[in-house]
């Protein structure tokens, strides 16, 4: 529990965390608003085929904030100080104050999960308000199961970012890969046109939890399960590597 609190306070005192919070809270709303503006006439006329995606598209594409959160939580541990201070990294301090490495990893993952859930709740509130603002009375109702799916999607994505960064230590690759993959120009969507297997990729499967896409492949529950499976596998891999690695390398 103490380790968990320590990790929470570490996260909150990171300089980059405010960027993550800002993007996480407002990007979904902005994306949803712009998308709703584009769809406005169709919705009013009742011709929209994407009605069930209204608002949720913001939550799906605005997940960049929690990606930054998950990556920074780990990459900040490995940022080497200037060699005048002996080239020290925060990871050495962190590992001397916890009883075991797994303990440390779980506490950090827990802190990341909690904060991403909170952030996703804030994002939902801003997105719903923004959609209401744009569409007024034509706003479709936001159902609880789908919103829960969105929250899960955010938490799982943050944990994926977290796991990958534990493996790479440096934040650049996971940031680049995940930001691109969850943007409008996603690898997973491209691959899904090439092979059906790509539909089991974590972000594509996770989308099923709250976005009703034209070619629905998995039920929401199964989609969530697939994504969760990815998170677990990645976490186990990260834990094994982390446990065995020399800190100085």
């Amino acid at each position, binding site marked *: 529990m103490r380790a968990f609190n320590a990790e929470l306070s570490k996260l909150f005192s990171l300089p980059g965390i405010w960027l993550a919070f800002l993007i996480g809270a407002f990007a979904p709303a902005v994306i949803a608003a712009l998308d709703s503006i584009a769809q406005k006439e169709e919705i009013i006329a009742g011709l929209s085929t994407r009605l069930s995606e209204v608002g949720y598209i913001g939550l799906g594409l605005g997940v960049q904030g929690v990606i930054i959160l998950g990556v920074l939580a780990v990459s900040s541990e490995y940022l*080497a100080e*200037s*060699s*005048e201070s*002996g*080239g020290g990294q925060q990871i050495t301090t962190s590992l001397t104050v916890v009883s075991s490495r797994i303990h440390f990893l779980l506490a950090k993952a827990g802190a990341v999960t909690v904060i991403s859930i909170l952030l996703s709740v804030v994002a939902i509130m801003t997105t719903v308000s923004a959609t209401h603002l744009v569409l007024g009375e034509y706003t479709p109702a936001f159902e609880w199961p789908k919103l829960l799916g969105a929250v899960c999607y955010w938490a799982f994505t943050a944990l994926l970012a977290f796991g990958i960064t534990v493996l790479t230590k440096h934040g650049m690759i996971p940031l680049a890969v995940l930001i691109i993959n969850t943007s409008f120009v996603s690898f997973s969507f491209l691959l899904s046109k090439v092979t059906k297997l790509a539909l089991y990729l974590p972000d594509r499967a996770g989308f099923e939890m709250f976005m009703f896409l034209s070619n629905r492949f998995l039920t929401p529950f199964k989609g969530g399960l697939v994504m969760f499976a990815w998170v677990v596998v990645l976490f186990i891999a990260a834990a094994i590597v982390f446990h065995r690695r020399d800190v100085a390398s």
Partner: protein
Amino acid sequence: MITIHNLVKRRGTQEILSGISFKARPGRVTGFLGPNGAGKSSTLRILLGLDRATSGNALIDGKPFAELHNPLTTVGAALDGSGAHRMRTGREHLRWMAHAAGLSRSRVEEVLDIVGLTNAAGKRVAKYSLGMGRRLGMAAALLGDPKILVLDEPVNGLDPEGIRWIRTFLRERAASGNTVLLSSHLMGELAETVDDVVIIHHGKIVADGSLEEVIGNHSTLEEAFFALTSGLAGDVV
């Protein structure tokens, strides 16, 4: 010769340097002392053109650093750390510097030999120990065989052999007419190496003169230092 004249540096509302002036003369080793946060690094950074002074100037042979024709052959600087990218090897680091200053590759090998890094030169800087990083910084400073050396804590992290080597090396350089300005915290070591002493405290110079003048009536440099930097000058510690 290094001339610092009425240097003032303000950052926001804080005044880091309040009009400091001193000289570092050729043929002498000048020691630059002060507590943490006194303004030593700021002064050296302004001298080397890294930071901008609010007013006053810091001149090298009468010219500011940016106006030197070939800086590396005039002033050699070793500031904190190795000053090298962690993923490059020591040799690659020195080679690009030599290329920029128009020096030959053989000079790189000479300098590596002087500081004793020839064996480690092919390894990445990230794998260097603290002392090896300082040696690399020293090698970079010596690359152009400059008349003036500016060193920030050169002894930091060196083993006893390295400490003795630096002391002898700097004395030899000063003896052959070069200027050496070095800052340090190690009083005992410094007292063995320097000719002149400049003490800075809270952005002001509190002592400036030869080693004997600054020590004055105190028994060691350390005593004089604490006397001058705790409270008002003249207080008995």
